[in-house]
């Protein structure tokens, strides 16, 4: 499957099937700091992702407070 990462924007090709939480663990990403989006909606951690899926892992942490 094609996985889009942000900040900086880049793409990875990951073999499926794999569950969302397993994908995040494999990429060493804290599950509470991102949303996982398939198509145009969110998917929870137990969702099985397939080779044909387009997935975005979107970070949610923003900074800049003085």
């Amino acid at each position, binding site marked *: 499957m094609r996985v889009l990462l*942000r*900040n900086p*924007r880049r793409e990875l090709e990951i073999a499926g099937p794999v569950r969302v939480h397993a994908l995040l663990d494999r990429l060493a990403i*804290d599950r*509470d*700091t*991102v*949303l996982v*989006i398939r198509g*145009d*909606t*969110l*998917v*929870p*951690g*137990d969702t099985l992702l397939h080779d044909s899926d387009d997935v975005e892992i*979107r*970070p*949610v*942490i*923003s*900074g*800049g*407070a*003085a």
Partner: protein
Amino acid sequence: MKCRRCRAPVVIEIRRHNAGFCSDCFVRHCQDQVRKAIHDFAMFEEGARVLVAVSGGKDSLALWDVLLDMGYEVDGLYLGLGIEGYSDESVVYVRDFAARRGATLVEIDLPADYGFDIPNGSRAARRVPCSACGLSKRHLFDRAALEGGYDVVATGHNLDDEAAVLFGNVLRWSTEYLGRQQPVLPAANGFPRKVKPLVRLAERETAAYCVLRGIDYQVEECPMAEGNRHLGYKAALNAMEAQSPGTKHAFLFGYFERASKLFAPEVAAEREELHPCSGCGAPTLGEICAFCRLLDRATTP
């Protein structure tokens, strides 16, 4: 996993609530949290004219959307910071949202209206960019709210933002800042009333709200913020939250309930000493306010 409210399949899990929600119930959850914050902290009444400070990011656009849906009279205020490759993109998200919702957007542009941008201005004034940015926002939002006759300025500070700021202020025992860290700052001595209606929502929730509501926002982080102290505090708190969900909420709301009043007298005393800036009339402790000093340094060749 089933939705806590309706038993439909979930689209998001919130570990600190030990719950998952379907799309419709999650949107209602966010609205309920904002409604509860407004009520519990007596932020503003029905019929109030609200000015929301919008950046093009997830928090401020989510806040504007929720308040519009709740029926408040709420306009947006965008401040162009002149950050190349960032500000020109962020304003597009804000304008698109305002157009889609038929909402009123007020725009101020630092380079066009004040003659400096954040990267060059902060350098000239020898300030950290985030500090110059925060100072400019506070000053210009206050002024716009007072001149526009708004009852209250609402900002998109969320639970993570507030917990990180509290963490930093406690680490340094910055008592003057601790006294000001409230979900509501009342109007006084030239300051408009300021509120933070997202204080009960984590930033993962405001981001999810935007995705589920189809709100496009600027995902890319501000290039000036990279590596700043605030992000370090968030990372430390997130590590604790991962071990014990609910830690950030308990830290922040425990402070509001049990400790914030200890620091209030210092702020009240400081506010009594404020007088109008000789340059612009904004409240200040010195002769010239911090924004006028920044403006002077940033625009002096």
